[in-house]
């Protein structure tokens, strides 16, 4: 039983999340009411979307530290556009945010692809540059709720079948990512190239180009999240989502995406994000000091990494026949 669990990372996470919910329910039963769980999901939607983008990048043995900065810049652009031209249709604004996010992601991708600069250096650099650009763009000023049009703010809040559009949107993106990762050559290329970049070349995968596309994907999702974030919280300023890049990476790591590339799944990343989301939302209501939150998420990350590493541990080649039989 335990073995089976350890084998399947997604199952393990589901069990962990349920256990967590049970623990929370003991102290504060209303938390597990369906309505509230839907709220928690809604609150985690943006993290889920971002984690899926980060997963694609990590799968290819890269990392995107600039996602949160990208989100903030795209979000600020969307908010400023809305503030300056309140009449502009919201879909157009979303398109601009997504396009801008994709463009920023592609800059990362190009630097990694064409100049061969290590991904961590590239995105460390662009992280500060994108943040700085928000300041230059906005002059440091905040865009507040009253400067945004109602339509702009309404979209993520509108409900469909009783659930906010934000939740639906993240579900759609999960579905798209499942198809992309599982059933398109690009998705398979992410896995292949992360697993063995050398061999990927032999199978006709263009390593640089595939990484570039992974960055474009993460940038696109960051751009979309930029709009969602800004309209959901109805505010845009230089520092929105500051430090969120680490939450995104943590969600992936908890979800079993291997930082060494090639291993991971959409389900894992989503569950990893949800795990963090449940903790974030639960701590304030179960009367655990808000000051404990950070230490707890730190502990969770470390435990998750250790558990995943155990599950991943190479079974080791088996030479002895008799041992092989015992293993299989």
């Amino acid at each position, binding site marked *: 039983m335990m073995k089976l669990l350890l084998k399947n990372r997604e199952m393990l996470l589901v069990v962990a999340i349920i256990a967590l919910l049970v623990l929370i329910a003991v102290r504060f039963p209303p938390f597990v009411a369906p309505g509230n769980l839907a709220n928690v999901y809604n609150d985690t939607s943006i993290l889920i979307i971002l984690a899926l983008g980060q997963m694609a990048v990590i799968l290819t043995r890269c*990392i995107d530290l600039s996602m949160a900065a990208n989100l903030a810049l795209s979000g600020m652009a969307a908010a400023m556009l809305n503030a300056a031209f309140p009449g502009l249709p919201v879909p157009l604004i979303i398109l601009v945010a997504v396009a801008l996010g994709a463009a920023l992601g592609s800059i990362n991708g190009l*630097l990694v692809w064409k*100049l*061969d*600069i*290590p991904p*961590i*250096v*590239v995105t*460390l*650099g*662009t*992280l*500060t*540059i994108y*943040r*700085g*650009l928000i*300041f*230059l763009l906005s002059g*440091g000023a905040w865009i507040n709720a009253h400067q945004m049009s109602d339509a702009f703010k309404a979209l993520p809040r509108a409900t469909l079948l009783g659930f906010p559009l934000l939740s639906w949107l993240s579900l759609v993106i999960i579905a798209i990512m499942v198809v992309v990762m599982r059933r398109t050559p690009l998705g398979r290329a992410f896995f292949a190239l992360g697993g063995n970049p050398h061999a990927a070349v032999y199978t006709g995968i263009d390593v640089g180009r595939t990484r570039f596309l992974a960055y474009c994907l993460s940038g696109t999702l960051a751009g979309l999240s930029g709009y969602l974030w800004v309209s959901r919280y109805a505010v845009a300023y*230089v520092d929105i989502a500051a*430090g969120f890049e*680490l939450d995104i*990476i*943590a969600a992936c*790591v908890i979800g079993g995406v291997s*930082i*060494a590339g090639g291993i991971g799944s959409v389900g894992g990343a989503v569950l990893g994000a949800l795990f963090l989301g449940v903790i974030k939302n639960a701590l304030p209501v179960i009367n655990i*000091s808000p*000051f*404990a*939150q*950070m*230490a*707890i*998420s*730190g*502990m969770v*990350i*470390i435990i998750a*990494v*250790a558990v995943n*590493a155990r599950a991943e541990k190479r079974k080791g080649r088996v030479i002895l026949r008799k041992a092989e039989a015992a293993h299989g």
Partner: protein
Amino acid sequence: MADVQTIARHIPDRLESRGARLIKSWETLLVAVALAIFLVNSFASPYFLDPWNLSDATFNFTEKAMIAFAMALVIISGEIDLSVASIIALTSTVMGYAVQLGFDTPALVLIGLTTGLLCGAFNGLLVTGLALPSIVVTIGTMSLFRGLSFLILGDQAFTGYPASFSWFGQGYVWWVFSFEFCLFVALAVIYGIVLHKTNFGRAVYAIGNNQTAALFSGVRVGRVKFVLFLLTGLMAAIASICLTARLGSTRPSIALGWELEVVTMVVLGGVNILGGSGTIPGVVLAALIMGMVTFGFGLLNVPGIVMSIFIGLLLISVIALPILYRRFRGRRSH
């Protein structure tokens, strides 16, 4: 060839003189950049060339640079430690707590250093003992250590450090030379010697270039890495003592975001983020460059975030330019 009997050909020790190598090195590029920034600053602001002002400016980088020395070794060995800023916070918090209990300066320093070493040991144990990737381990401990500091301090601040303690952050050793600056210089020399002149330093390079081969060659890889994490913990503690003394108070948010600045400094100093190469003089130069950029922009009242754009561009372009240059030269020689 193949004839074993032939007298072995003589292989010279070195082909290029040290001078020739130096001219082509990364450090030379950095010296040029540093000089350029120095000149630009001198022209841009009449206040720049003032010994006291320059002395004040050193506080912009000394604490970060101290950590950068240890971080350089960690990165050369192929690992990374993102928890340094959180170690500063936890160390400072523990020292603050000790102040409340009535400890005096020497005890505070001892307690601070011990806390830093314990944090480093925790990282080291997870990375070497459980063989976990250091980047995720230290993302975790980054939250954990600062989280503990929040847990202890909550919405409080520790103040009331003894006057003798504040000397570490505000004292001057001689004329305009602050204690922090002198410590920075001393640590630069020590780390330079450790990395470039000792067996330990050689082991760090060997591990960074090929961990497996280093292990097969008798390098105690686990032990070396553990010591490296201890060292970053220790240096973070030293930086924490200086910073706490300089601020005279402790908040859990102290030194927030420093880890990325430290890594930027190390990478700008020519240390390969993938491990295997880099020098301490490079890191020293990068520290000076970042300090001068911050100070120069500060004199012109440019907001910090605009400076960080510049640092970001500097980081990418300083790494991209040699690559582009090599490519350009390669194309021409065809």
